[in-house]
C-alpha cells in the first residue's frame, strides 16, 4: 500500500494533511485567551434544538472551529507573511505606516453618534453652569502624524471635525490639546503599535489643561521617578497581526500619592504592575477601566481639598496620574462602568470637571448619555 501511495504523492500528502490536522485539531485542548490577538477565543457552543433550528448553533460552531483550529497563531503568521510579500499595507482595519507606525484605517465617522454625544456634553454643561466644565477630544495618532500614513489613504480629517465640534459647543469650555501634540513633533506623543497616547502625550495634554486653568505645569523630572517597560505590543498590533513589527516602550512615572481607591476598595497605588508582565501592558495604568477611582495626592490638604472630576475613556488612564500633581483629590469616572454621575455630584463638590475622550471612542460610545444620569 505504501508503494502505491508513493505513486500518488499529492493524494497521499493531501490525505495526510486533511486527516492529520483533523485528528490534531480534535486532540488539542481549547484555548481561552489569545495573547496574539488580545481577545477571548470562541468556545464550543451548547447544542440545543432551538439553536440548531435557527441556525445559530451552526454559525457559532463554525466560529468555534475556526478560533480553536490547531496552530492558529502559526497560520495567522503565515498569512501575514504572504500579505507582506504582496506589498499589502493593511489588515483588519489597521494600516502600516512609515517608521513602524500602525494607524487606524478610518474612512468614515459615525456622525450621528458623534453629534448625539456632543449634545449630551452640551446638556451636561448647561445643567452644571456653576462648575467649570472643560471638554477635550484627543485626535487619533494618524491625525497628528499625517505624513507617516501610506500615500493615498484618505482617512477622516479628525482635526477638522474636532475643531468643528468645539466651535458648536457653547455650554462648556474647551481645552484643545491638538496643538501641544503637534508641537511635540507628534512622534513621541503616541505609541506605534497601540491606539493610545504615550505618557509624554498625556503629560503634554495635562500641562496644557492646567495652564488653561492658570496653573504652572510641574517639571516632571523633579517630582517623580521615571520607569520604562519594554516589549509593548498594543491594540493595533493585535489587529494587524503582522510579523516584524517593533514593540513600543512604555514610560511611567511613580507619582507619589497617599492612596488610591477603586469602587470603594483600596488598591496598591496608581498602577497595576502585574500587567506589565502580560500582553496588554497599557492595562497597568490606573488598573485599567473602572467605575470610580479616587486618587489622593501625596500631601495632606491644608483646609478644603481641591477636587477635580475626570470623565474619561481609556486615554484618561495615563492622564489621571498627572492630575495628582495639581489637585488634592482626583475622581476618575469611566461611564462604561458607572451608572451615572448625578449621585456622585450630589455627594461630592468639585472645583473642576474635565471630560476627556479619544475621538474614535467618542464617535462610537453609547454611554456618554450617562453624563446626565
Amino acid at each position, binding site marked *: 500500500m505504501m508503494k502505491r501511495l508513493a505513486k500518488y504523492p*499529492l493524494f497521499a500528502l493531501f490525505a495526510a494533511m486533511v486527516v492529520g490536522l*483533523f485528528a490534531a485539531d480534535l486532540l488539542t485542548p481549547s484555548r481561552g485567551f489569545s495573547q496574539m490577538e488580545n481577545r477571548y477565543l470562541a468556545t464550543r457552543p451548547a447544542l440545543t434544538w432551538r439553536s440548531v433550528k435557527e*441556525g445559530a448553533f451552526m454559525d457559532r460552531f463554525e466560529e468555534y472551529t475556526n478560533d480553536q483550529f490547531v496552530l492558529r497563531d502559526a497560520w495567522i503568521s503565515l*498569512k501575514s507573511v504572504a500579505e507582506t510579500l504582496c506589498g499589502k499595507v493593511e489588515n483588519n482595519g489597521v494600516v502600516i505606516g512609515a517608521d513602524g507606525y500602525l494607524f487606524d484605517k478610518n*474612512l468614515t465617522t459615525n456622525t450621528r453618534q458623534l453629534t448625539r454625544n456632543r449634545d449630551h456634553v452640551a446638556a451636561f454643561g448647561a445643567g452644571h453652569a456653576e462648575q467649570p466644565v472643560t471638554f477635550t477630544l484627543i485626535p487619533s495618532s494618524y491625525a497628528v502624524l499625517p505624513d507617516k500614513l501610506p*500615500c*493615498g489613504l484618505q482617512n477622516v480629517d479628525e482635526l477638522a471635525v474636532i475643531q468643528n465640534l468645539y466651535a458648536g459647543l457653547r455650554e462648556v469650555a474647551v481645552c484643545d490639546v491638538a496643538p501641544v501634540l503637534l508641537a511635540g513633533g507628534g512622534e513621541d506623543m503616541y505609541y506605534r503599535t497601540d491606539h493610545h497616547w504615550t505618557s509624554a502625550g498625556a503629560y503634554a495634554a495635562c500641562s496644557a489643561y492646567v495652564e488653561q486653568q492658570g496653573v504652572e505645569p510641574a517639571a516632571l523630572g523633579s517630582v517623580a521617578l521615571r520607569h520604562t517597560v519594554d516589549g509593548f505590543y498594543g491594540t493595533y498590533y493585535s489587529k494587524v497581526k503582522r510579523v516584524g513589527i517593533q514593540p513600543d516602550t512604555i514610560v511611567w512615572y511613580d507619582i507619589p500619592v497617599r492612596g488610591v481607591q477603586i469602587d470603594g476598595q483600596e488598591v496598591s497605588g496608581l498602577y497595576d504592575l502585574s500587567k506589565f508582565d502580560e500582553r496588554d501592558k497599557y492595562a497597568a495604568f490606573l488598573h485599567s477601566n473602572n467605575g470610580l477611582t479616587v486618587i489622593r495626592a501625596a500631601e495632606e490638604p491644608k483646609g478644603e481639598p481641591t477636587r477635580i472630576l475626570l470623565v474619561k475613556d481609556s486615554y484618561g488612564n495615563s492622564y489621571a496620574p498627572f492630575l495628582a500633581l495639581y489637585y488634592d483629590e482626583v475622581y476618575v469616572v469611566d461611564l462604561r462602568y458607572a451608572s451615572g454621575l448625578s449621585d456622585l455630584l450630589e455627594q461630592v463638590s468639585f472645583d473642576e470637571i474635565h471630560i476627556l475622550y479619544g475621538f474614535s471612542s467618542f464617535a462610537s460610545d453609547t454611554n456618554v448619555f450617562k453624563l446626565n444620569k
Partner: protein
Amino acid sequence: MVFSSILFLFRFLPVTLLLYYIAPVRWRNALLLLLSLVFYTWGEVRFLPIMLCSALIDYFMGLCIQRYRHSRALCRLFLGTSLAVNLGLLGFFKYAGFFVENVNNLLGWSIKSPNILLPLGISFYTFQTMAYTIDVYRDSFPAERSFVDYCTFVTLFPQLIAGPIVKYSDINRELRERRLDPDAIQRGVFTFIMGLGSKVLIANNIGALWSEVEELGFANISTPLAWMGILAFALQIFFDFSGYSLMAIGLGRMLGFTFPQNFNYPYISRSVTEFWRRWHMTLSGWFREYVYIPLGGNRKGRGRQYLNLFVVWALTGLWHGASWNFVLWGLFFFFFLCVEKLFLLRWLERSRVLSRIYLLFLVTMGWVLFAITDFGELGIFLGRLFRYHPGAEWVYYLRNYLCTFVAAAALSTPLLEWAAGKLRGNRVITTAFALVVLLFSVAYLVDSSYNPFLYFRF
C-alpha cells in the same frame, strides 16, 4: 456549509472520504446521500423539505412517464406537473418579492412585499430535476428506478449548492458503477486545490476592493478607482464562481464522478458568442437544450430565431437575480450576440488583439450592470467611469492590490496550463505547487475576515 471553510476541509471532508473509501460498494450511494443531506442541512435546516419535495416530485413523475409512455396526454400531464412544481417553487421563493414590487409600481397598489428567504441552491437543483424529467419525457434514457440512486444524484453535495448543473445523463453510469481510480482521485485533489486557491487567495482578496469601493460610495471615488473597482469585481466573480466549480469537480472526482466542465478561460474570448461558450457552460447548455431548442432554435426562420434568443437571454439574466438590472444584463449580451451574428463575427475573427479588447470592454460593462442593482447608483457609477473625476486615493488601493490583480490577470489565461505542459508533468513541481496553494489557502481561511459566498442568492 461552504467548501472554503475550516469546518468543511477539516471536519466534513476527512470524515466523508474516510467513510466513503472504507464503505462497501453497494452502500456508497446511500452513504453519499446521507452525507449530502447533512451538508445541506448544516446550512439550511428549514429548507430541506423544499429540496426534497422538488426531488421527490420529479422522481415520481419520471417513473409515471416511464410507466405510461403509450399515452402522450398522460406524459404531458406528468411533465407539466413536474415543471409546474419546480417553476412554482422557484418562482415563489425567488421571484415573489420582485413580482409584488413590479405590480405595485405598475398598478400603484401597495401590497406588502413578502419577506421570503431564498432556499440554498434552489436555482440549481430545480433546474437539475426539471432537466431530468424533460429528458425522461423525451425518452433520452429510462427513468431511474432506485430511489436512493436518484436522490443521491440530486443531493450530491459537491454540486448541490452552486453547480455545475449536472444532467442525469452526465453521471447515470457512474451512479450505478464507479471505480475509485487513484490517478483520477489525485487529479481530483489537484483540481480541488486549484479551486480552493482561486476562491480564497484570489476571489476573496480582490473582492475586498470592490466591497470597499461600494462602501466609500460611488459619488466619492475617483475615475481610476472606479475602473479598478469594476475590474476587481470582474475578477472576483470569475474566480469565485470558477473556483467553486473546480472544487465541485475535484470533489466529484475524488468520489468517482466526472462532472462537466463549467468554465474554460472565458476572459480570453474574442467575441461574446465565444464568451458564452466558455462562461458557466452548464447553464448556457441548459438554456440551449431546454429552452432554445424546444422553442424552435434556428429551425423556424431568422425572425423566430432572434425571438428565441431574446427569450433565452432575458431568462438567463433573470435566473441570476430577481431584479431588473440582471434582465438588462442578459439582454445586453443578447444585443451583442445578434450584432455578432449579423456581421461582427467575421471582423472579430480577423484580429487577435482588437477582438479581445472589444470583448473585455463589453464584459466589464456587463459586470457594471450585474453588480449594481439600483439604477440611480448605476448612473452615478457610469458617470465616474466615463467622466474624469480626479482623486489620489486609488494609489493606496493599487499598492495593496497590485499583486492580486497581476496574479488574477495571469491566471485568467491558460498560462498555468502552458507552464504545466512545459514541465512535462514533473511530479515534484506540481505537487509542491499544489501544497503551497493549499497551505496558504488554509492560512487565509483561519484568519479570514472576508469570505463571502457570492452565489448564496442562487
